[in-house]
């Protein structure tokens, strides 16, 4: 029997029904209880030492009440019936509009929609084995080259149980397990210091380390830093950019992902407003957001409004086919939710968020894409990014990049940002590879909340982007 079905609900359904009714006590049409119980372990190694192992426990409930256009929200760490009802009354008061009323709420039966199996639950694994991974990472990175002068590594796992119930009768639960390993490396040479970074994260348990080689991860990060020691300043100005598979998903996350979130579209704060059915990208581009993608960092059984996660096609052959939706925005438009209502924790309101966002395979051989590029930049690893959804202008950092000269990858480049305009860059994608891969685990920030997301893409070329280097 799958592990996810062995747990009792965090709070019993009859208590939830009373709390939801209290939430509608001032006449509100919708109330929701979100209960979270999260346990986490993290360990950090720096400067050759395991500095600290941390255990954390976060548990509480967030109660949302919607009355007309107004949402009231309160949260509490007290999960007793008394604590929950007090929070529900506070939320109801916050949303108070119109007359009072007495409401009865009847919940359906509990549903679960696990998207992947967890074989080795991390809380059953000895902490010493977790710490051991960090020591292996440290040794492997330092072994790459004497130029490696510093290594920092982090391990983290969490098990987050959530239960969502609302006055429409939804009663849904999920158990979300995440396991993460990251490594940062500093190398030093004549020209100063350079850094390397890599990470590995999935919605599975400790079996992640049976399926992945942590030494390989460390070596990749170390080589990245060492390579950059001989890097020349990045060029300045517009030129073709080839982005390696699995490293450029953040481009789509920033260039159009955020702009396809219905809350931003609803307020006309997205450059993609009113573009449904129109060509918004190169016909090569089909963009998917998929919360069901097994074991990927943004995978979820249900979203944080109790809706099962889904695979949603946002752009099909360049044509905008849908936005992403949460409960409130979908209700307003009289349409179905898409499983994109997410929140950082019980202390936060849900809003429209991405899950795993990616562009599916094209037809080109990735080597041909490079060969076809006379002069340009090859990006092997991207850093973070940022977008202004209203204008579409976005930036992202390149943490490992090379020059392309006469169809060949040549010299390494120092770090810098790239800048572009979402709709323009999407239309400028002129070659798409057949080598799809997902990228590193990411945390997406919006309105002060961080949620885990994944992204991916095959090797691709953008005809022209602005490289923010210093070399003329």
């Amino acid at each position: 029997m799958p592990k996810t079905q062995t747990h009792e609900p965090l709070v019993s359904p009859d208590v939830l029904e009373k709390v939801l009714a209290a939430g509608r006590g001032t006449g509100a049409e919708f109330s929701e209880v979100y209960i979270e119980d999260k346990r986490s372990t993290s360990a950090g190694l720096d400067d050759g030492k395991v500095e600290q192992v941390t255990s954390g426990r976060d548990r509480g409930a967030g109660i949302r009440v919607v009355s007309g256009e107004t949402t009231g929200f309160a949260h509490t760490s007290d999960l007793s019936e008394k604590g929950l009802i007090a929070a529900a009354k506070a939320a109801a008061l916050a949303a108070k509009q119109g007359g009072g009323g007495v409401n009865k709420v009847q919940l359906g039966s509990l549903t679960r929609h696990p998207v992947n199996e967890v074989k080795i639950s991390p809380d059953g694994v000895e902490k010493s084995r977790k710490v051991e991974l960090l020591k292996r990472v440290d040794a492997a990175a330092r072994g790459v080259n004497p130029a490696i002068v510093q290594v920092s590594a982090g391990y983290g796992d969490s098990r987050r149980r959530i239960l969502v119930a609302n006055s429409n009768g939804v009663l849904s639960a999920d158990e979300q397990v995440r396991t993460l390993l990251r490594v940062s490396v500093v190398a030093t040479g004549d020209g100063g210091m350079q850094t390397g970074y890599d990470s590995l994260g999935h919605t599975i348990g400790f079996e992640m380390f049976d399926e992945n080689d942590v030494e390989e991860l460390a070596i990749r990060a170390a080589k990245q830093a060492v390579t950059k020691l001989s890097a020349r300043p990045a060029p300045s100005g517009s030129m073709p950019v080839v982005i390696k598979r699995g490293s450029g998903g953040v481009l789509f996350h920033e260039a159009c992902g955020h702009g396809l979130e219905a809350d931003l579209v609803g307020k006309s704060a997205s450059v993609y407003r009113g573009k449904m059915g129109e060509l918004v990208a190169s016909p090569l581009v089909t963009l998917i957001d998929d919360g069901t993608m097994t074991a990927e960092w943004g995978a979820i059984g249900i979203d944080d409004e109790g809706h099962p996660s889904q695979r949603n096609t946002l752009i099909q052959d360049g044509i905008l086919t849908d936005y992403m939706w949460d409960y409130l925005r979908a209700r307003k438009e009289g349409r179905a939710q898409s499983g994109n209502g997410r929140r950082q924790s019980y202390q936060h309101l849900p809003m429209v968020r991405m899950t795993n966002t990616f562009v599916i395979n094209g037809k080109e051989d990735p080597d041909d894409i490079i060969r076809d590029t006379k002069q340009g930049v090859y990006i092997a690893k991207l850093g973070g990014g940022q977008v202004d959804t209203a204008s579409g202008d976005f930036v992202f950092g390149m943490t490992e990049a090379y020059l392309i000269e006469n169809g060949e990858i040549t010299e390494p480049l120092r770090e810098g940002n790239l800048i572009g305009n979402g709709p323009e860059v999407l239309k400028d994608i002129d070659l798409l590879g057949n080598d799809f891969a997902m990228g590193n685990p990411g945390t997406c920030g919006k309105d002060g909340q961080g949620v885990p997301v994944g992204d991916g893409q095959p090797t691709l070329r953008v005809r022209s982007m602005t490289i923010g280097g210093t070399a003329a």
Partner: protein
Amino acid sequence: MSVEVPDLQKLADLVVEQARPGEQIEAYVARGGETSVRVYEGELEHFVSAQSEGVGIRIIKEGRTGFAYAGTLEPTAIDEVLAEARDNIQFGTVDEWAGLAEPDGVQQVPQKFWDQELADYPTDKKIEITKELEKLTLAADPRVRAEQSNYEDGWGETAVSTTTGIRESGRGNSCYVSVATLADDGDEALTGFGFSVGDSPKEFDLGKAAREAADRATRLIGATKPASKKVTIVLDPYVTSQFVGILSSALNGENLAKGRSLFADRLNEQVASAKFTLVDDPTNPLAYTATDIDGEGLAARRNVLIENGVLKKFVHSSYSARRMNTKSTGNATRGGFAGGPGVGCLAMQVQPGAKSQAELIATIDDGVLIQDVAGMHSGVNTISGDFSTGASGIVITNGTLGAPIREFTIASTLQKMLLNIVSLGNDIDWLPMRAVGLTLVIDDVMMSGS
């Protein structure tokens, strides 16, 4: 701290009293609450009223450290946290410098962090203010739409106790309003924001917040992408604050100890233009991040870091100080109960120049006024010093402001930019960030565009 919180201090004391022989224990307990109001098109969009609490316990024994936390102050949960932290000790590596801070006799500078008027402020008034801000913003410019108008306040109480004799508690509250704006420019829309911060809502300047929000959204209408070239950049105070803020990492004594500071081996050397003096002074009540104690409970203090361009000091916690054979500068940072202390600057201040922004611009033949930057987290590496960010602003030609430009980057290295500071404005702005804002002029920066 100036206002004590006896019940939290007692909770922290109770944890520390359970120390076993050879153990050093630090207990950090906190609770707080927030109100968040959002208005859209004249209607209340959301109202959030929330409270939270938690405890973090750090135990050090024979050079090994363990830590645990929980988001609750229930007595049984605190016992569990203590047991978890104790269990975690065995997995740490022995670190001869590990340890808690010890009282160092430095006196705290008393400051006021609690405003009773804010604590008593009625809810309907908070909603009224938020609606008023939206109204003022829309009235400021007919081209402007409001995406959201917000009121936020929060209060917090903390207490820390240690086996080394630190016992500190205190409470504070604060509030601000902000508005996010949009102005249409063809298919695209441009964004802006405005805000106002005060000890209590009566100090808000809603009119200024509204005007700034309208101006930020409209000033880039019709902006084009510039050609690539070397330019002199004039950083608006809001951008300077972000630029100065990232220097904290390079001035961090723990980064120095671990070989991650680009200022390593540069003490007493010229690292910046002689016009640049940087001080970290959390005792200055004008600073938004002013505090009386640091993250370990030591008195916060004034430290001169760069004086006339010469690197004078790194900031330290007790841990980094022990490693570098010096004393804590009172610069331990702490993000809350869920983590142990780190190191960082607390309230960075730059010595202002003599001229206004307009006077400085008048002296520039070929430059750009940088009004906003994007991607400080992705394009700036504080270890290598590589600096590259997205930017938008206004062209300066022969001392005069011209056309707006956007979708370009500015790039150099932090090392060069500090040396290339040519002048500073007299327009000190105590922004709600870690570093003060003022106009800063930097030469020889690469602008990348079309």
